[in-house]
């Protein structure tokens, strides 16, 4: 086996590499595997992505960001798109999202079913999240208001 000219230095390099990888992929850039069709076509079921946990350190999520939110813990996450920001009024009429009464243009949505969702005003700690696949039946699609404390990070790629 080849350890390099200085095996001790090689060992230290390997240890540092392992430590840095563990830190990055456990606490900063979390790998996730998409399951389900609610974020199609942007995110296909079975594909691998990463969640940047530091993305919102300086500012909160912005409209259009795809974010991960936790359920009971960090191992199973929902991945959804932000359509409503804290304090805004959100309503869905015939599958079209209205923010403060104005139609939201969503280029990432390809087909829509005529979902209905009564107007709701988000609190200062809430975001409104929906998946991109609006061709699903609304009852089969998890969407709605999420508390800021549930946000894990931004799905970056």
């Amino acid at each position, binding site marked *: 086996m080849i350890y390099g000219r200085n095996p001790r230095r090689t060992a230290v390099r390997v240890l540092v590499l392992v430590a840095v990888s563990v830190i990055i992929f456990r606490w900063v850039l979390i790998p996730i595997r998409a399951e389900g069709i609610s974020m199609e076509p942007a995110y296909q079921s079975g594909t691998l992505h990463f969640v940047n946990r530091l993305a919102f350190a300086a500012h909160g999520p912005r409209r259009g960001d795809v974010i991960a939110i936790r359920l009971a813990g960090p191992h*199973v996450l929902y991945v959804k798109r932000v359509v409503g920001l804290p304090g805004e009024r959100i309503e869905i009429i015939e599958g079209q999202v209205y923010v403060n009464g104005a139609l939201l243009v969503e280029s990432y949505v390809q087909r829509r079913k005529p979902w209905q969702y009564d107007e709701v005003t988000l609190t200062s700690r809430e975001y409104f999240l929906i998946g991109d696949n609006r061709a699903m039946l609304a009852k089969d699609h998890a969407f709605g208001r*999420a508390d800021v404390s549930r946000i894990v990070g931004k799905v970056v790629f």
Partner: protein
Amino acid sequence: MSRRALIVAVAAGAIGLAAAAWYLLRPAEERVIRGRLDSLVDDFNDPGEGLASLAKAVALASYFTEDVRVDLGPGSPPIEGREALVGAASALQPRTAALRAGVDDVGIAIDDGGTSASVTLTATVTRRNLATLEETLDAREFALTMTKRDGTWRIAHAKAVDTLR
């Protein structure tokens, strides 16, 4: 072995021992509850056939109190009582060959008296389309109340938590 290598080895050993001690010395009741939940999932995933399925149904019932209540959220009436719950589970039987349940992120807080526990978890159900072999995953967060009666932990109340409201 150099002095530095020795220090690293001792530190690694100490960390390993600490991890093992933490695992072994966790509150015993917490381990018991986790074991109960794991067994429940195993029994659900292996419903058996014929007489075995009856035995499994009895086994499934044993994880719940007689007056268990399951709240699945708006739009679904609550399931009240162990018999009703087992009946609802039985209704799933023809499909269970394509269903696989799991629990993740289990959090347990045992009350002071040691006879009641609040449990949070994420329940997952993987459905496999037998024709295409395609799998889809559904996940739902639950808050459970478990009680210890006759030395056995049972689920007394299960409430679906709306992650998105």
